[in-house]
């Protein structure tokens, strides 16, 4: 057994050097040179160059003139340094109460329209950057009213930012909330 000691120790150290340092650093070098935008988190900047978020990460929009993301269980909500789902089972009382409360509020906002499931359920990551097209369209009347513009124009912005499934069947259609809200601000600039 003693004859295995040297190879066990030496190979462990060599593997850490090759696989734990050289490999990730080499990938980092290639990534930073060839794909710097993705490699640094797909960050989105405003006109002044300030980072306003990541196109891949939800942020907590709450104002009526913006599209709202899905409910979040990450930290205190949309915490991109503490991702989390609710992990609640299907019969969890708190889950049922939460969905009922959220649905009641949405029903006041847009009566008589079916509420999409993703509008009242927390995502797996708590950072889901997308909503379903149905959820985005559900919110269009509120956004249009807050901005004083026709609903049709808000719907046009949403449609322009709806991603279809790959080849028609891989993944689900999705609307990136941050992209739509940036487009809304660009299309309908705020007063002053």
């Amino acid at each position, binding site marked *: 057994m003693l004859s*295995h000691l040297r190879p*066990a*120790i*030496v*190979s462990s150290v060599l*593997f*850490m050097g090759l*696989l*734990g340092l050289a*490999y*990730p650093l*080499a*990938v*980092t070098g290639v*990534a930073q040179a*060839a*794909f710097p935008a*993705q490699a640094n*988190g*797909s*960050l989105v900047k405003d006109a002044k160059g300030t*980072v*306003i*978020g*990541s196109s*891949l990460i939800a*942020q907590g*929009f709450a104002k009526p003139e913006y599209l709202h993301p899905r409910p979040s269980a990450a930290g205190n909500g949309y915490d991109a*340094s*503490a*991702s989390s*789902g*609710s*992990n*609640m*089972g*299907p*019969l969890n009382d708190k889950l049922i109460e939460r969905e*009922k409360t959220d*649905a009641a509020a949405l029903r006041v906002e847009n009566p008589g329209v*079916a*509420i*999409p*499931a*993703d*509008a*009242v*359920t927390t*995502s*797996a*990551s708590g*950072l*889901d950057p*997308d*909503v379903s097209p149905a959820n985005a369209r559900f919110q269009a009347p509120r956004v249009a009213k807050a901005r004083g513009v026709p609903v049709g124009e808000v719907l046009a912005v949403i449609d322009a930012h709806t991603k279809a499934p*790959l080849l028609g*069947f*891989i*993944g689900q259609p*999705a609307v990136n909330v941050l992209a739509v809200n940036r487009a809304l601000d660009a299309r309908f600039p705020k007063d002053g």
Partner: protein
Amino acid sequence: MNWQGWAEIALTLGLAVAIGWPLGVYMSRVWNGERTWLDPVMRPVERFFYAACGVDAKKNQTWWSYAGALLAFNLFGFLFVYAVLRLQGVLPLNPQGFPGLSEHLSFNTAISFVTNTNWQSYGGETTMSTLSQMLVLTTQNFVSAATGATVAAALARAFTANRGEGVGNFWADLVRTTLYVLLPISFVVAVLLVALGLPQTLSAGVIAHTMEGAEQKISLYAVASQEAIKMLGINGGGVFNVNSAHPFENPTPLTNLITAISINVLGWAAFFAFGRSVLAKKDVRALVLAAAVLLFAGAATIYATETMTPPAQQAAGVETAVNMEGKEVRFGAPATAAWAAATTGASNGSVNGMHSSLMPLGGGMAMFLMHLGEILPGGIGSGIAVMVVMAILSVFVAGLMVGRTPEYLGKKIEAREVQLSILAVLAIPVATLGFSAIAAVLPEALKGLMHSGPHGMSEILYAYTSATANNGSAFAGLTANAPWWDATLGVAMALGRFLPIVAILAMAGSLVAKPKLAPSAGTLPTHGGLFVGLLVGVILILGGLQFFPALALGPIVEHFQVLAVTDGH
């Protein structure tokens, strides 16, 4: 459910088999020491490893020498991971400023990554420094996968040899699998994943000033390099807390497809590699067929349960076509179902949706796929090795029925092989059910549960199943970072890993010395439909029946509770 969903599931699971086939031929060449196109680059590195380690890679080791080398390597792997995690606070490349981990969390995490389980009692972005993620976790992602592959390589030699002596050289199998298979493929996939949106940086992250004027701290890591081997090595331990549901680990349907295929592709490759090395391609195709049928049935079941009516969505009066709690919009039901089956059928354990929020039978199916022994297609090498054990038990059962000494792949199966086979498959039920039974009545353990009632039972059962089967996924409502859970799950992971490995290597040692027989008229054919049916039966009875009473107390009773409140919709 719709045709698009079925097509996505079929494509995801099918492509893994299709790509695994040619990769298996390549893997077999690597195990056999044949020439490969990477020789000009890798041969010098390989020779340097042997020289530095002082090993003769051509030395044919007996099974106990092979097993001793494997255990010694894993012991030091454990010690290095443990030391780095404890010392994290004083080591460099810690831009997050995280302190060292506690004794019990370091113990649990070190065993977890060495055993290829990658159970995580912690949240990555709130616990691990960039150095820890790279130096010890990424390294173990590679070498724990290669360790599993060595078992299949040794077993293949046992079936090939005619009155042989040794089962090969552990150091050669370990180094060659890592250098020629895992490292080059991971490098290519990692760069591809960066191009498709995964971060790869040594920075700890940025502070964003959001459009509504809030501050948002966005954690970053060298994600892509770890993601590639996390999937290809069938490890499953995420950089971030929510694993492959995190948009930085899995941003688009295309990255989801690529990483979901990566879960199974080298597991299947090891099946095909075994078949080529043993000159038993037809017999291994039967094993692939049996595994693929079971895996697809599992995915179909989960797709069906996730399109049942969820009680909360029904009570809230919202759309009920898909259970969206714990799912990402871009994936929906089909991609989450395909992933849940692939990750539990293989011993991966990554998730792209929260298993605790699956409908009861969906979560139950995820557990059941692990109960079957991690053979669909399981870990790289460890999967095919346990599948061969199942095949040996199948020919043994058939032999009992017709009164002949059973043979498999030209080797007589006698008492010692059957004893060792049973030992190999006993680890999962004994450790899973034993620890679950204790935890279910122990106040110290019950403190960690998020749910009471059947879902709480499922949290316990899922945790010990996942640990023992070296899977690593979780019903994550459980707070596992406490001394009881860290310690017992650590022991369960070690038992579930090393007991079957030693039993299978011992069996290889027994088989290698036997003469290689030509099939006779009395040999049960092990490549036809009859054998596939028999094998599926043995797998389901060994896996299914032992766990049925426990599953009845968790997911099955919860399923009927759901039906009671949703009126059977």
